[in-house]
């Protein structure tokens, strides 16, 4: 094709056009770099392979959840239930495997299914029940956490004395193993990010996520089913919460009803740090990856600097809100003419 419009879109033009996305990407990357440099200076324990691998391991569950959250946020929604869904899915699955002797792979399938089902339920309540996204998922947050408590009876699973077998080594490998010296969970997170990226880029549904978040009415007029699109996004979110559940259970060598509390905050923070628009329609999975790593580095840094866990919680809350404030300011400043 010789037409200039197609042949070569000059990269600089594209950059100009996507000024926001470039900043989206450059910004978080720059932030992460600064954080890394500062930590390397201020603590001798940060910049060594053992710690960095540890950061990768810690980042993994959050990145997996954030991948699903990214899709939900693309559609203009928000999923507050991911942490609870993760706990429920992991609890059900590990109880089935260790207490009832269910086959390992079937158990993992159950975990994913429970996650996806919770996502589906979120989606149905939002689209069919016309409940605002944050209320529906807030409800699910409590609902799933309660179910997780019921399933585990509030005990760590496998619970000594009831368990018919210990935590399978395969699951431990998912959470705590290595592949080529790199933590397995980080690999899994990368695969999840890649899959999500591929879906968002190359499938009809992926395109629809952006359309629905960018302009719901326009999507409808274009013959896109807004309901189906949102449903799919929430199912992805639930499914990935399930994946994260297995990984975390493996890492902890146990599942319990309290795991993943506050995970929604980390995930949302990662997505927004990655440059996605909280109001939908814009963003990129690469950004979410960077955002997820940043959160993990921040957590790790605060640990290394021996900041009290109470203050860490305060700091994380403040950071998340600060990121959103900055994001909103930047959009007003640079995007709205």
């Amino acid at each position, binding site marked *: 094709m010789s037409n200039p419009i197609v042949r070569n879109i000059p990269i600089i033009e594209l950059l100009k056009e996507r000024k926001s996305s470039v900043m989206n990407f450059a910004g978080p990357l720059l932030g992460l770099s600064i954080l890394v440099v500062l930590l390397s200076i201020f603590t001798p324990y940060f910049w060594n392979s053992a710690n960095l691998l540890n950061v990768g391991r810690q980042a993994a569950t959050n990145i997996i959840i954030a991948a699903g959250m990214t899709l939900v946020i693309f559609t203009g929604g928000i999923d507050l239930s991911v942490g609870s869904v993760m706990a429920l899915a992991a609890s059900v699955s590990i109880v089935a495997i260790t207490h009832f002797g269910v086959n390992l792979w079937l158990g993992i399938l159950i975990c994913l299914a429970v996650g996806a089902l919770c996502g589906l339920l979120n989606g149905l309540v939002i689209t069919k029940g016309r409940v605002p996204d944050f209320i529906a998922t807030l409800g699910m947050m409590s609902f799933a956490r309660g179910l997780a408590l019921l399933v585990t009876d509030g005990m760590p699973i496998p619970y000594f004395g009831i368990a018919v077998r210990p935590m399978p080594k395969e699951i431990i490998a998912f959470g705590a193993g290595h592949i080529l010296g790199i933590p397995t969970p980080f690999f899994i997170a990368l695969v999840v990010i890649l899959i999500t990226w591929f879906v968002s880029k190359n499938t009809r549904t992926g395109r629809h996520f952006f359309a629905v978040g960018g*302009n719901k009415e326009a999507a409808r007029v274009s013959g896109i089913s807004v309901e189906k699109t949102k449903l799919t996004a929430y199912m992805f979110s639930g499914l990935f919460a399930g994946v994260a559940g297995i990984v975390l259970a493996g890492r902890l060598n146990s599942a319990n009803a309290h795991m993943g509390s506050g995970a929604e905050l980390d995930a949302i923070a990662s997505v927004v740090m990655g440059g996605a628009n909280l109001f939908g329609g814009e963003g990129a999975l690469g950004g979410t990856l960077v955002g997820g790593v940043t959160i993990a580095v921040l957590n790790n840094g605060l640990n290394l600097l021996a900041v009290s866990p109470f203050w860490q919680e305060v700091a994380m809350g403040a950071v998340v809100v600060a990121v959103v404030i900055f994001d909103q300011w930047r959009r007003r400043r640079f995007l709205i003419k």
Partner: protein
Amino acid sequence: MKAQLLNLFNISKAYPGVQALKEVDFDLRHGEVHFLLGENGAGKSTLMKILSGSVQKDTGIIQMDGKEIEIISPQDAVKQKIAMVYQELSLFPNLSVGENVLAGMLPVKKGSHLVDWKEINRKTKEILDELGLDISPTTPVADLGVGTRQLIEIGKAISRQAKVLLLDEPTSALSVHEIEKLYSIVEKLLQKGIGIVYVSHKLSEIPRIANRVTVLRDGHKIGTIDADQATESDLIRMMVGREVSEKYPKDKVKIGKTLLNVTGLTLGKRVKNVSFHIKKGEIVGIFGLMGSGRTSLARALFGLENCIDMNVSIGGNTTKINNPKDAIKAGLGYITEERKMGLVLRMAIAYNITFPILKKILRFGMIDHKSERKTSLSCIEKLHIVTPHMMRLVENLSGGNQQKVALGRWMCNESKVLILDEPTRGIDVGAKVSVYKLIGQLAKEGAGILLISSELPEVMGISDRILVMSKGELVAEFTREEADSDIIMTHAVGGKVSEGGRLI
């Protein structure tokens, strides 16, 4: 001569892709109605928005009573006693007339924070009496007709002691009776020394109420003349700046057999038992005033409303349309009244064009990016969309080019029948002409067009047949040759007092 109230010098304002105003001077005297005239996109609304603080000028000076003022927010405008009466009303329908009139400045009982209802009713009554409106201050606004609501808006402005009143198309939704009422209120306000900027399309209003007329065209000021010296033909020449035949290009197109047949379309009270047909190559215009049900008709036909009752056949086959997907499958295309409602602005042109046809460019279930680019490119070329490349975000295009993207989407989809709702609203004259040409081209290629518009010259200019809607019903039908603007207008307003007729 009356004293100067407002002086604007060298006002310029640019939106991405459009110079909305270019070095425009404008002035308003105490106690005068200054008529602002121009076609859609001429810059009238922008000027009003600058004065009311909802957009900010790029350059220029605004003086009030000789002193320079800055208006950078609606609050500033209120502070400067400039009040805008919006076309799309800005009242709270769930609250009473009194609460609306005094919104934001509700009186409280002395030494407390409790609302003083007696005072509200007393003050409101005073203002309503001044306007000659016999309405109780406690009536919910939702119970009032459109016309009365507009007068309440004016009351709201008076309660704020406005010195400058901006009226945007105040009579577009009013009945003849209500218009008279409005005029008498305007005259009262003039006696109080208030200056009124009056935007309207209706030239017939000028001799009735205007003192002076300023004509804008494509963002430039063409001139200001005294109303009693203004002849209609002069004004039209100033407004249009070119011949009508150039403005509404229309080719002879062979009209074929019936393409779309709709019978008994009913949508609650908004659309009542409407039946019509469109033939191959035919452009059918639907004209109606605000609230006549024209947009509801389009939305219903495209499956965007619930509880629709209609029988549709396309190309002779009976078709069920329950949602836009069905409509698209059946070969319909729809361009929404608000351009922003139909486009995803923060997305590339290419993606916007291919939304409805993604299914056709899938390979192994994945989007075939190459074929997507090819489709978009051919569309961009065919429609002469002015852009450096197809990945440009739609929001960075001018209004006219945005509209072409919206049209292009359906051209690529090879829609058989296109529903165009106000396809030229808010785009400049040159772009309008090219949109008309595209519509003509689509008709020539065998599409049937349903053109919905509130601009009568446009409807008369490019339609083969004209249907008139009023209060949800089709009330008249004209061929291109029969069409007469006065007769059409009479039908459109229902020939008598219109729905706003709750006015007493």
